Each structure stands twice: as structure tokens, then as C-alpha cells.
């Protein structure tokens, strides 16, 4: 059954091609159902292939479709490599993608470019599958670039608004910087090994010289930084929220951003062969990103931006795991994160849908009464991400924290602070949106305001009663005027259609139970670890701390989560303490603006300088050669004056000189 592996990416590709040709004709909602059907079929095929893989003794399968690039000694085939790692990725990619396709049928209802959206989504799923299934670095890179391109298409899907187009561009350019690292890594691998196939490169990675391995690992890590939004290339992810919410859920939560983690896990033998400071650096970058992003999320007011920074933060946790050598833990967290983050995003989309496209949390409130299903899914995922047992996030995050504790207490402390902040800001979001005062009611039924103006020169005082508009009230709450959408007069938030709520519920359930993929302490409960053993056995770090330490750490995590939730409750639910949302956090530590200022200011000046250099020096040299030749020709031209007597005198002078030389030679 494993031979059907080629079918898994082929189905979304077929969907893409069909939608390109007939999408407009199919229209809404047929195009959406076609796309969803394709991805669901892909998921079912993945299940079948999974069954086949489990049945095999050696959990690895290679299939080459055709030789893609035959160029002498450089030969690259279009092949698939199925092992537990890629199987896991395929399963949750296709599963979550299918759910999100279903969700999009409801969410994108009424959009003029409905079929195009699904076209891009299918293309994205295809690219992502190629990324994880490729049996060599070049096929992976094909998928890598494909997902980057689809991310660009989908972020700027509503490109009529310049900000959206700009966000897409920013994502693509930032990704590109990372892609340079990937390419350099690929070149180095080929230069060292003469081949790009994983089956040839990875087993031989143990014999690499340390400097080579360090260089390769660093280059691939740069690629991962770009794709998975770590410091310093994370600035595109919050901007990417300009895309439709299903895009944010699929691409920027569950799949594309995890590609970097996947890459590092896949190249783990190389990472192991590199110098010791490389994994250390990866771990520290991960934990610092987690901390930084969590701090920024505390002060964000857009419902999607909070989740975006949360994603960056959780990705930091995953890289922390990678840096610690606990690759299977990174994959574990990737899976649980995919469940609860996708659920959170879809829930946010549902809220936005219900709030008539308003995304600012300050106009929401008490939505749990009006959108119960959404609320349920959101709450479950909230508890998961906050790290409350027995929800999935608790298990995966705790594994990471245990490994961190084993490595260095400083790392553990930093990660713990990040976890605390995670619980805090997620709870803040939940309380603002689903509890508290329904702010939108105030906006739709505004209180008249009476202003008493004292009369002039001791005359009668006049009273003017005005009814403030919704926008004015919203601005008073702090919402930027251009981000506020006016609500209709008799406004009540409504629950979303079944196409949107079904995926929510499914993901919510997964977020609840996903943690049981790997139960700590229980020896037979390490399902995921054992499943991924063939891939990571030789490279993985193993837990050496005692069981008692593990239990202690579990308790500490739970307590920290509780503290975070309680703190948020005190501030945002009971309003006993004033909210602390410093400007610097709201502006993201000014990282983004400083990058823009640098690139726009000195950066542009530098680029202008380079362009000027090209124009003046390089072009000038080339043109100068031409101009110099011309002027030389012009001056030599003077010799041919047309005067015969001049020519004759030149002949005469020449002959005198020659004869003089000869006589001189003879005489002297």
C-alpha cells in the first residue's frame, strides 16, 4: 500500500490544475467542494499508506517517479521518501488542510474570487507535501519555494488594499533571505557529498569534518529562520495576518512555518556532527524568540495579531527542542501546536465572521453566550496552549521544558517565563473576547451625550445633546478608525455555519486529546517517541533526569499556567488591577519599525550607492572605453588633413628620422 505515496501529492495537484482550467466555471461553492474533496482524498490515501508503512518491518520506503535533472554527475530524481517523520508530517498536514478547506467553503462565502482561493490552497497543499515527502534536497526546495509563493499569493489575496499586497511582498522578501541560506546549504551538501539524496547524505553525515558540518547546519538554519519566523526574520508573520483567516490557520500556524523545524529535524545528523555551539545557539535563539514574541503578544489588540505572535513564540519552543537535540519532542509540539493553533485561528475567524469583520478585541465581549460552539473550541485550545493538563499543549510543552532543565537552568527559567506569558496573554484574549462586557452593544446603542456650554457674557447656558457615532466611540476605546467596521443597528453576533463549526469541533477535540500521543513517565505510553525512533535514534538526546524530577517539573508547569491564568483574570475579568500594556510592547519592541527605518534610510542609501557604483563605475568603464576609443580616433583623425603637402612633409620627416638613426648607428 505504500506504493500509493505518489498519490498523496498528486491529488491536490490535480485539484489545482482542474481549478485553474474550470474554476471560474465551477464557481461557488462547487470549486470549494472540489478542492476539499481532493485534499480529503489525499488524507484518506495518507491513512492507507500509513497502514502500509506500519505493516512494514523496516519503516522506510523510497519511490522515484522519474529522473528530474539528468546532468552528468549531477542527477536528481523526482522521488519520495517515506519514513516515520515524513509520514507523521503528511498525516497532520493533509488532515488539517482538509478541515481548513471545509472551513473556507463557509468563510469565503460571497467572495468574488472564491475559486481562485481554493486553487491557491490546493497548490499550497501540494507544495507542502512535496516539501516533506521529497527524497532529496532539491525536491524539498521545490516545495519550500512553492509554499513561499503560495503564502505570497494568499496573504495578498485581497490585494485591492495596498497594505495587504505590501504584507505579501514583505513575507516573500523575508522568506527569500532565508532561502539564500537553504540554497547555500544545498550547494555545500552537493559539494561535500556529490549527491542531494537524503538516503545517501544522512547516513554519511557522521563522517563529516566539523567545520563543514557547522557550515551546512548554519546555512540550513538560516533558511529555517526565514521560513519559521525566528529572530531576526520573524517580522513578516504578524503582517501576514492581512490574509484571510483560513490562510493564517493553515499556512502560518500549522504547516508552512513548521517547514523550518522539519528541515532541521531531517538534517539532524548534520546538526549532530557540527560544532557544539551550533545547537546551543539554535536553542537560545528559539527561547529568546519565544520570550520576545510572548512579550509583544501581551499588548496586541487585534485578535489575529495575538495569535500570530503566539505562533512565533511557540515556534521558538520548537527550535529550543531542536537545539537541545530532542527532535521528536519538537515534532510532538509541532503536532499539538498544529491542532490547537489552527483551532484558535479558525475560532478567531469565526469570531471575526460573527462580528461583521471587526478584528479588534476592544469592541468584543461576552461572545460565549452568542457563539457557543466557537467558544467551546476556543476555550479548549486556550487551555491547551496555556499548558493546563490534561490538554495536549501541556504534554508537549512540558517535554521541552524537561529537556531544557536537563540542559541548563537558565534556559529552563527563560522558557518558563515564556510559558507564563503565554498563559497570561491567551487568557487575556479569551476574557476580552468571550467574557466581560459586550462592548459592541454600547456601540450599537450609544448613550446620548449632553454637553453644557456656559452662555456668553453671563447669558443663558445652552445644552446640546449629541449622539456619538459608532466610529467615534470605537476610537474612544482605542480602535484605529480605518480598522473599525460599522455594525448594523440591530446587531447580535451569530454563530457560524456548519462548514465552519465542524472543523472547529474536530480540532478542538484533537487539541484535547492530542497530548496522549506521548505520555511521560509511563514506559509504554511513549507512542510518538518510539514511532519516530528509526529516524532520530542515533541523533536524539535522551532524558537522563530522574522520574522524581520529571514529576516535580510537571507540577511546576501546572502551577505556572495557573498563575498566568489567574493574573489575567484579575486584570481583565475582575478589573481589579489596571491593565499593563506598555507602548513598547504594542509596537513590537520597535524591531519592525527599526528594520523599515534602516532599510528605508541608510539601507536605501547603501543600495542607491551600490546602484550608483554600478552606473558610474561599471557602466562608466564600459562606456568610457567606447568614449575613449572615439576620442582617440577623433584626435588621430586630425592627421589625415587632406593636405598633400602635409603628407609629404610627414614622409620627409619620417625618412630624415630613419636615415638619421641609420647614420647614427654607423657613425657611433
Amino acid at each position, binding site marked *: 500500500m505504500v506504493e500509493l505515496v505518489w498519490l498523496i501529492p498528486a491529488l491536490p495537484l490535480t485539484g489545482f490544475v482542474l481549478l485553474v482550467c474550470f474554476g471560474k466555471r465551477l464557481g461557488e461553492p462547487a470549486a470549494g467542494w472540489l478542492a476539499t474533496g481532493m485534499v480529503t482524498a489525499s488524507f484518506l490515501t495518507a491513512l492507507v499508506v500509513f497502514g502500509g508503512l506500519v505493516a512494514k518491518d523496516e519503516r522506510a520506503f523510497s519511490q522515484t517517479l522519474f529522473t528530474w535533472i539528468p546532468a552528468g554527475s549531477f542527477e536528481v530524481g523526482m522521488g519520495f521518501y517515506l519514513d516515520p517523520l515524513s509520514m507523521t508530517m503528511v498525516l497532520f498536514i493533509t488532515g488539517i488542510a482538509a478541515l481548513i478547506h471545509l472551513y473556507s467553503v463557509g468563510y469565503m462565502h460571497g467572495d468574488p474570487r472564491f475559486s481562485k482561493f481554493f486553487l491557491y490552497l490546493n497548490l499550497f497543499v501540494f507544495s507542502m507535501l512535496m516539501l516533506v515527502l521529497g527524497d532529496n534536497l532539491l525536491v524539498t526546495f521545490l516545495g519550500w519555494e512553492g509554499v513561499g509563493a503560495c503564502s505570497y499569493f494568499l496573504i495578498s489575496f485581497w490585494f485591492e488594499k495596498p497594505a495587504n499586497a505590501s504584507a505579501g511582498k514583505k513575507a516573500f522578501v523575508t522568506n527569500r533571505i532565508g532561502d539564500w541560506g537553504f540554497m547555500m546549504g544545498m550547494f555545500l551538501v552537493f559539494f561535500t557529498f556529490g549527491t542531494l539524496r537524503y538516503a545517501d547524505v544522512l547516513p554519511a553525515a557522521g563522517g563529516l569534518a566539523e567545520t563543514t558540518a557547522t557550515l551546512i547546519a548554519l546555512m540550513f538554519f538560516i533558511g529555517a529562520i526565514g521560513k519559521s519566523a525566528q529572530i531576526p526574520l520573524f517580522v513578516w508573520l504578524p503582517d501576514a495576518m492581512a490574509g484571510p483567516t483560513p490562510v493564517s490557520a493553515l499556512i502560518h500556524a500549522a504547516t508552512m512555518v513548521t517547514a523550518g523545524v522539519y528541515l532541521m529535524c531531517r538534517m539532524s545528523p548534520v546538526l549532530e556532527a557540527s560544532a557544539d555551539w551550533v545547537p546551543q545557539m539554535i536553542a537560545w535563539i528559539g527561547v529568546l524568540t519565544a520570550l520576545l514574541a510572548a512579550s509583544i503578544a501581551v499588548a496586541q489588540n487585534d485578535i489575529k495579531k495575538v495569535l500570530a505572535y503566539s505562533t512565533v513564540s511557540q515556534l521558538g519552543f520548537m527550535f529550543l527542542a531542536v537545539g537541545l537535540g530532542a527532535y521528536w519532542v519538537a515534532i510532538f509540539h509541532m503536532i499539538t501546536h498544529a491542532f490547537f493553533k489552527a483551532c484558535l485561528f479558525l475560532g478567531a475567524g469565526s469570531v471575526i465572521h460573527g462580528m461583521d469583520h471587526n478584528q479588534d478585541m476592544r469592541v468584543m465581549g461576552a461572545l460565549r453566550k452568542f457563539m457557543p460552539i466557537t467558544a467551546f473550541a476556543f476555550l479548549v485550545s486556550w487551555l491547551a496552549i496555556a499548558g493546563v493538563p490534561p490538554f495536549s499543549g501541556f504534554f508537549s510543552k512540558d517535554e521541552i521544558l524537561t529537556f531544557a532543565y536537563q540542559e541548563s537552568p537558565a534556559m529552563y527559567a527563560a522558557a518558563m517565563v515564556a510559558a507564563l506569558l503565554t498563559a497570561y496573554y491567551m487568557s487575556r484574549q479569551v476574557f476580552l473576547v468571550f467574557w466581560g462586557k459586550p462592548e459592541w452593544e454600547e456601540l450599537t446603542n450609544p448613550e446620548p451625550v449632553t454637553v453644557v456650554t456656559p452662555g456668553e457674557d453671563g447669558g443663558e447656558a445652552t445644552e446640546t445633546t449629541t449622539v456619538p457615532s459608532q466610529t467615534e466611540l470605537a476610537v474612544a476605546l482605542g480602535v484605529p478608525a480605518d480598522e473599525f467596521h460599522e455594525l448594523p443597528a440591530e446587531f447580535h453576533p451569530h454563530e457560524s455555519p456548519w462548514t465552519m463549526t465542524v472543523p472547529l469541533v474536530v480540532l478542538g477535540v484533537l487539541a484535547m486529546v492530542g497530548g496522549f500521543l506521548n505520555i511521560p513517565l509511563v514506559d509504554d505510553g511513549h507512542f510518538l517517541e518510539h514511532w519516530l525512533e528509526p529516524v532520530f535514534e542515533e541523533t536524539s538526546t535522551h532524558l537522563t533526569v530522574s522520574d522524581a524530577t520529571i514529576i516535580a517539573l510537571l507540577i511546576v508547569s501546572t502551577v505556572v499556567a495557573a498563575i498566568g491564568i489567574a493574573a489575567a483574570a484579575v486584570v481583565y475579568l475582575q478589573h481589579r488591577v489596571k491593565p499593563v500594556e506598555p507602548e513598547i510592547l504594542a509596537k513590537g519592541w520597535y524591531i519592525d519599525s527599526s528594520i523599515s527605518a534602516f532599510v528605508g534610510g541608510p539601507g536605501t542609501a547603501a543600495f542607491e550607492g551600490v546602484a550608483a557604483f554600478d552606473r558610474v563605475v561599471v557602466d562608466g568603464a564600459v562606456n568610457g572605453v567606447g568614449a575613449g576609443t572615439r576620442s582617440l580616433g577623433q584626435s588621430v583623425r586630425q592627421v589625415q588633413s587632406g593636405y598633400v603637402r602635409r603628407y609629404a612633409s610627414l614622409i620627409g620627416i619620417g625618412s630624415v628620422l630613419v636615415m638619421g638613426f641609420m*647614420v647614427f648607428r654607423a657613425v657611433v
Partner: protein
Amino acid sequence: MNSSVDPVEAITFFLCALVVMGGAFGVVTSRNPVHSALGLVATLFGIAVLFLAQGAQLLAAVQVIVYTGAIVVLILFVLMLLGVDTEDDVDEEPLVGQTAAAIFVALGLLGLLVTTVFVGGSEIVTGTKSTTAAISPDESNIAQVGRVLFTDYVFAFEITALLLTIAVVGAVVLARRPRSYEPMPEPASMAAPEPFPSQDDAEGSVH
């Protein structure tokens, strides 16, 4: 150097040298081109006498007949044909630096040649004395020159004949009046060829 110089020969040489230089001076500096032609005649005559002094009688005669009698006359013909006007082209020089170049060339050449003559001394001629065509006082000069021309240099002789023919043809072509540009007559049809093509050409130009 002057071991046995015949005084007659010396005086002849000296006088002819004067004539030659005077004529040359006249050619170069005369304002009137006809005066230049007369100066040229004087030079040529002087050279002819010098030929005689050297024992080249044929050449002297040929010099007078061809050079003086034909070439200078031709030049005078053309001078008269084109009109003689005293141009003041000796006074001013439109080209910058031309006079300086001319003086440099002339003096340079002179200096070098004189140096060669004096420094070389008797080694200035590097050839060997001829055995076949030695100048003998017994035979007449004409016979000697004739023999050499028709035996050793016969090929060159014939070529010069060709050269003269070419020169004549060239002169004729150059001096023709430009034809009026009338169109060629239509080529006659094969059926009825015209016996005499009618032409309205006053010049009588031949196609």
C-alpha cells in the same frame, strides 16, 4: 682625396654646379611659374653637361632631348593653357608649421647625406666593380649602354615600354571633356536590327 684632378674637369664641374644650383634656386623661389620653368631648363642643361663630364654621352643627349625638349615643353604648354598668374604663394604659408617642417626635412637630409659622403669616404660605394659591364674607353658609350640595356636589363626595358603606353592612355582618358549624360539607346530587337543607330550627340561620342 683630390689626388689627380684635371683642372678642366674641375672648372667645368664648378661652373656647371653654379648653373645647376642657380636654376634650382630659380625653380623653388620664383614667383612666376614660367620663371620656374626656365630655371628648370637651366638645371637640366647643367646636369646634361655634368653627364658629359662623367662620360655618359648618350645620357646627356637623351637628357636634353627628352627632359628639356619634351617634358619642360609639356609643362610650359599646360602652364600657358591654364593661364599664368603670378600667385603670391611664396610669401604666405597657410598651413601652420609647414615651412618649419620643410626646412627641417631639407636641412636634415642635406646634413645626413653630407655626413654619409664624408664619413664614408671611399667605402661609400659598397658594390664591387663590374666585370661584365665595365666602362671601357674603347667602345662607344652608346654601344655599351645599348648592349647592357638589351641583355642584362631587357625585361625592365620591355616593361617600361608598357609603362609608357599606359601613361599615354591614362593621359588621354584624364584629359577628355566630360560627356553629356544622355541615356543609352534602346537595345535593338532581334527581328529588325537598325543599320545605323541614330544619335544626336554633338560631341560625336562613341558608345
